[in-house]
């Protein structure tokens, strides 16, 4: 299998603080990989190590078939897109002028500006000065800036944190479309819904260790007690194990007309995280 990101036994320390511990993970082409973890778990450190901004302490990393010493070359930088947690725009310049700079740095035709602004739904605002934009609009401009050179691999460090749900949905939509066109995405988030809705594979990162890693649905099923919970009109709660043999019992219940609500007890990713690490994601 051809991996876009291939990490083996990666560790990274800042002095005495070990931020990443013995991480091994592979991201195949076309995946949306999500690092889910609370503040301080090592998400930014992981991304910066992959983008060549930080040097690893030990282990091996290969990104887009390049070794660590090639990660600071213009060749690598031209192939990736990075939206960091503290990215910013030139506030006094217009959206257009901000993107124009990026086009020239990446040797991209200026015609791409309209195409990308269309995509992030900002085409009518292109002459607006950045300082006059809302937070969500700025984030979409930054996303446009990250995408304009059509990177093979996209690194997004908490791309939607502190945005309202409407803007989060817009950004997710853009990322899904992009992924369908073949871009591999590596993102970090502390938001379980983002990880569940967007990612094909999620790594639960806590204290610099990937505790578990799988498709979000699989992570949830694995930690499910695998039961149906049936709430009846008279307030009774009936638990039925989710097995083919029990289908008769379920049919009977439904036929009896007693069923008020019925649901599986699959945990959310947040609950899985809490169960695995003993730590709440929200903090």
């Amino acid at each position, binding site marked *: 299998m051809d991996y876009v990101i291939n990490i083996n036994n990666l560790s990274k320390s800042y002095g005495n603080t070990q931020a990443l511990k013995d991480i091994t993970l592979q991201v195949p082409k076309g995946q949306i990989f999500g690092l889910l973890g609370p503040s301080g778990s090592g998400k930014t450190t992981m991304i910066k190590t992959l983008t060549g901004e930080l040097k690893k302490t030990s282990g091996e990393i290969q990104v887009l078939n390049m070794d660590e010493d090639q990660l600071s070359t213009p060749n690598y930088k031209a192939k990736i897109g990075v939206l960091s947690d503290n990215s910013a725009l030139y506030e*006094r310049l217009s959206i257009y002028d901000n993107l124009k700079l990026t086009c020239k740095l990446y040797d991209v035709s200026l015609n791409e500006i309209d195409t990308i602004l269309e995509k992030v739904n900002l085409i009518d605002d292109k002459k607006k000065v950045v300082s006059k934009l809302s937070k969500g609009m700025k984030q979409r401009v930054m996303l446009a800036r990250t995408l304009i050179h059509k990177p093979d691999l996209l690194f997004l460090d908490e791309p939607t944190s502190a945005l309202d749900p409407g803007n989060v949905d817009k950004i997710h939509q853009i990322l899904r479309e992009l992924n369908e066109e073949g871009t591999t995405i590596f993102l970090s988030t502390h938001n379980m819904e983002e990880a569940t809705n967007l990612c094909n594979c999620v790594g639960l990162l806590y204290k610099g260790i990937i505790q578990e890693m799988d498709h979000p649905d699989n992570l949830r099923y694995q930690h499910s007690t695998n039961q149906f919970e049936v709430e009846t009109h008279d307030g009774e709660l009936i638990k039925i194990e989710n097995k083919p043999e029990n289908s008769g019992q379920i049919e009977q219940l439904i036929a009896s007309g007693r069923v008020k609500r019925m649901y599986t007890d699959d945990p959310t990713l947040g609950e899985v995280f809490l169960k695995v690490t003993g730590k709440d994601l929200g903090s």
Partner: protein
Amino acid sequence: MNTKRVLAIFEKDIKDFFKNTSLIIMPVVPILLAVFYNALFDDFIPLFTIFIIIGMVFAGVTSYCIMIMMAEEKEKNTLRTLMMSPASFLDIIVGKSLVAIVMTISTLLISIVFLDVYHVFNLQTILGSILLLLFFILLGIGIGLFAKSIAATSVYIMPIIFIFGFSPMFDLFGLEEGHFVNVIFDALPVSLLMQASDEGSWMPLILITIWVVVAYLFALFSYQKNKNDD
């Protein structure tokens, strides 16, 4: 170094320059002063006033402009995005230096036209001005990399303007020849330029070259320090 990327940075920064009120006033000050001096002294303008204006342009426009541009990119975190692009650090520095050069030369020319003092510019003074431009650019880069914030930059610029920019003024104090204050201020770059104009000699240019080397080492030191901070 990649010319296309250097020009991209230059284009962005020059546009930004004219939208940044704290930068745009810097060339205005020496030009207004030139107009004022020209009105004040109708036939003979003392040499030191001309060189104070030149010093103000170098300190207030050249150094300050590049310092603010560097410090702002760091403080606002736009530098990181630039560094993640295919542009190299050298592309970024050179692009910004070009802005400082264009603004310095325009301000100098406008001031000189208003002062109407073309006679002070002999060959030595012209070559010396080029060296001075280099010195103040390197000084600005050094401090811009060194400064932690835009606010810190406005503190650092004060001694630069007063010591390096206003050094020709110390002739006014009428201290006796050979007084240590005079010796020190005569050895500062803008004073050396004034001597080159006054005496038409080459010695000041050699001394200015030493200043350029010192500024280069300072910029290099700041660069290394800045790199290790991350």
